[in-house]
């Protein structure tokens, strides 16, 4: 409903009004009482004013301190100190004024004393309540549901006590003392919550001790001042707002004093161990740095640097080194506070003394052997601790830590550094995996380029006469493959046609395929007969192919003038021919031998040439063994017969349709689109 600022302002105004109200009512009550006049104002009014004043202050500080963002403990204590300082200075100023007046009549005047008393009461109330809110934040740091409930009971009981003063029911008044005791006991119980102390570092602890001690001093001063003033006034009249009978103020003084005392003692006793806590915190931070190094760092070197730094600062080592030894290569050293020469001396000393386990590659676990350095003369160091760094179960290197005192490392340190080296190993392993993944990504990109280049080696359009239609389709099992087809116009009516399949598949096949293209385009120009072409291609390839590679090829010369096809087969799948006149398809059964199988002059003896005349409607199907050897789920091959039956079935369709149907039939047969060999078809239909 109201903004925080409005509430703060409003409560300030209320606090001032209620205090001024308290001042005038209480003064008038005291005046009437001391002068035996009939009181114009009831004696019950001042306590009501006091309660209202306290309530306003409570709201003011609650919003002022509790809602603030900062949870810096020293800042909070600083607030307590400053509030205390200001109120004390104001109070001291009045005391000075009082002293300056000496023992004049005014000082004896109970009205004047009451005035001074009420000022002090106002000041102590602000100090108490602001401190109370700060204590609340400290106690409820790391709260549990139980703690929160207890605190709320305590806080409401305190506020309820304000009502107590306002309603002067005699029977209840008798219980006042018990009520105060109950509140104090609750305060003591809550005062056991000191978790915030652990989070202070050494310097902050000293500051806190100072601030709390000063706050306690203010409290003591105020309590003393008020008590003396109150007893002075009480000597003259009982009818004034005596804080001594106010449950709220007395309980609050007790609670604030108890918590301050507890805090002071706890901080004081925690001082010697604060370095341990700080060290633990640093270990966690270092560990986190190591874990994060994998994502942020650019190199393994940085991981080693961080490991070295973290290890040294965590166990307060005087020197350290990391030795990274890769097989057959000189060891690499990362050092801190030590030279490589000293390292060599220490290593020699240790191996001379036959100490196994420290810096020993062969042992699976290097251990903490403090004493062995004590016999090393001329060295500054007296204890050593070494750990292996493992990556993928292989020791990559060693981390060694040194101290210039003997027995400098304890079991705790061993554990911590062991975790550090393990984490560093994981970081390095991850780092390497990441690099590998990037490298693989690069290879994939390279293969994509290779695929593009290779697909450009296959012609988009095959040269042909109006005498026939021609259509080709090719797909590689991997990114690149070894299938090849091409055409070359030899003369006006003459076209040379080739289909090839390199043995094997993948990259090596792709290289040989490109050689075949070169050979085809060189030899086709010479207008050779199919046999001559194959003999020369075999000779050329004898110098190009590796020992176990060969290329199967069929070479055709289509003459549209004489309507003949002359062809020869070099180990390639037999050509399928559909004879439209007899409405049947068959494979040409001429002999042949793959290119590169026989790398001498005898090759020609194994090649047979064949010629046929074509008529309208005849179809020639060229293909590679990826088609006939395509397997289905049962392990059956697509085979020659299925291909033959297929062409007899679809012979009426156009080449485009025949090709589409064939590919579809192939995929349906194999049940998958990933056929594990390169496959190519080339279909010619004569008009």
């Amino acid at each position, binding site marked *: 409903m109201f903004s925080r600022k409005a509430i703060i302002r409003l409560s300030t105004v209320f606090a001032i009004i209620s205090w001024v109200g308290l001042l005038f009512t209480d003064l008038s009550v005291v005046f009437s009482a001391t002068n035996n006049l009939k009181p114009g104002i009831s004696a019950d009014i001042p306590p009501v004013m006091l309660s209202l004043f306290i309530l306003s202050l409570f709201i003011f500080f609650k919003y002022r301190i509790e809602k603030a963002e900062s949870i810096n403990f020293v800042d909070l204590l600083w607030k307590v100190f400053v509030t205390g300082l200001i109120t004390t200075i104001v109070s001291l100023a009045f005391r000075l004024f009082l002293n300056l007046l000496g023992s004049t009549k005014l000082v004896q005047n109970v009205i004047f004393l009451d005035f001074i008393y009420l000022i002090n009461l106002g000041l102590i109330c602000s100090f108490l309540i602001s401190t109370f809110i700060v204590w609340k934040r400290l106690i409820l740091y790391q709260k549990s549901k139980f703690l929160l409930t207890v605190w709320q009971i305590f806080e409401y009981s305190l506020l309820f006590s304000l009502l107590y003063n306002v309603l002067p029911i005699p029977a209840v008044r008798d219980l006042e003392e018990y009520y105060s005791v109950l509140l104090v006991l609750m305060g003591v119980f809550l005062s056991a919550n000191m978790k915030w102390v652990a989070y202070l570092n050494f310097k902050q602890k000293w500051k806190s001790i100072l601030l709390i001690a000063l706050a306690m001093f203010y409290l003591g001063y105020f309590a003393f001042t008020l008590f003396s003033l109150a007893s002075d006034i009480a000597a003259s009249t009982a009818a004034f707002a005596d804080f001594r009978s106010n449950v709220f103020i007395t309980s609050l003084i007790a609670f604030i004093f108890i918590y301050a005392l507890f805090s002071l003692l706890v901080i004081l006793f925690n001082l010697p161990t604060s370095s341990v806590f700080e060290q633990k915190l640093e270990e966690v931070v270092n560990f986190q740095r190591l874990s994060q190094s994998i994502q942020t760092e650019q190199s393994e070197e940085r991981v080693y640097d961080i490991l070295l730094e973290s290890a040294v600062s965590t166990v307060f080592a005087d020197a350290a080194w990391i030795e990274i030894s890769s097989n057959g290569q000189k060891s690499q050293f990362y050092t801190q506070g030590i030279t490589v020469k000293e390292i060599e001396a220490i290593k020699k000393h240790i191996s001379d003394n036959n100490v196994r386990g420290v810096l020993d590659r062969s042992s699976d676990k290097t251990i903490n052997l403090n004493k062995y350095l004590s016999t090393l003369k001329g060295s500054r160091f007296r204890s050593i601790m070494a750990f292996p760094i493992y990556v993928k179960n292989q020791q990559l290197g060693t981390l060694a830590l040194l101290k210039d005192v003997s027995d400098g490392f304890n079991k705790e340190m061993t554990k911590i550094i062991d975790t550090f080296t393990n984490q560093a190993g994981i970081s390095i392993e991850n780092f390497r995996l990441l690099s590998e993944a990037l490298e693989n990504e690069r290879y994939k990109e390279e293969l994509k380029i290779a695929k593009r280049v290779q697909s450009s080696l296959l012609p988009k359009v095959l040269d042909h006469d109006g005498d026939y239609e021609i259509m080709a389709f090719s797909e590689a099992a991997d990114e690149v493959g070894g299938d090849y087809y091409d055409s070359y116009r030899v003369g006006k009516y003459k076209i040379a046609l080739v289909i090839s399949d390199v*043995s*094997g598949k993948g990259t090596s096949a792709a290289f040989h395929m490109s050689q075949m293209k070169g050979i085809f385009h060189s030899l086709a120009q010479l207008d050779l007969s199919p046999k001559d072409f194959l003999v020369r291609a075999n000779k050329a390839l004898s110098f190009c192919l590796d020992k*176990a590679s*060969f290329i*199967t090829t069929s070479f055709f010369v289509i003459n549209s003038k004489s309507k003949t096809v002359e062809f020869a087969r070099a*180990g390639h799948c*037999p050509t399928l021919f559909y004879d439209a006149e007899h409405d049947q398809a068959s494979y040409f059964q001429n002999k042949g*031998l793959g290119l590169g*199988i026989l790398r001498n002059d005898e090759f020609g003896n194994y090649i047979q040439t064949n010629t046929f005349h074509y008529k309208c409607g005849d179809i020639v199907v060229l293909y590679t063994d990826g088609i006939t050897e395509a397997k289905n789920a049962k392990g059956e091959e697509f085979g020659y017969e299925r291909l033959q039956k297929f062409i007899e079935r679809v012979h009426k369709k156009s080449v485009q349709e025949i090709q589409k149907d064939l590919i579809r039939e192939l995929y349906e047969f194999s049940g998958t689109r990933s056929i594990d060999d390169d496959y190519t078809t080339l279909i010619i239909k004569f008009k």
Partner: protein
Amino acid sequence: MVDIKRIKEGEYEVIAIKGEVDASSSIELDSAISDAINDGTKKLLVDCTSLEYISSAGLGVFMSYIEEFKKNNVNLVIFGLNDKVANVFGILGLDQLLKIEGTKMEAKALLG
């Protein structure tokens, strides 16, 4: 994928191939043949009774030894090819260069 065994039978050495020979398993076939040659075997029998499939890379292994057999006077006979595998040898033309027989008896008889 493939199981290749070398069995010594008197003066003959039998290389028995079981399963499928493709690009990756052809390396095993290659090392079996090359080991046999290095051991000084002159009469080599290749038992293909249990050979179910051979890829072009597998054929390339046989092909690559033709010259070496001639040079070292090694006689190699392949036997027991099933129809499908025999067809693959035939299409490529390897049946014209390699000695292929039906049974082990025939193969031994050929080697003498």
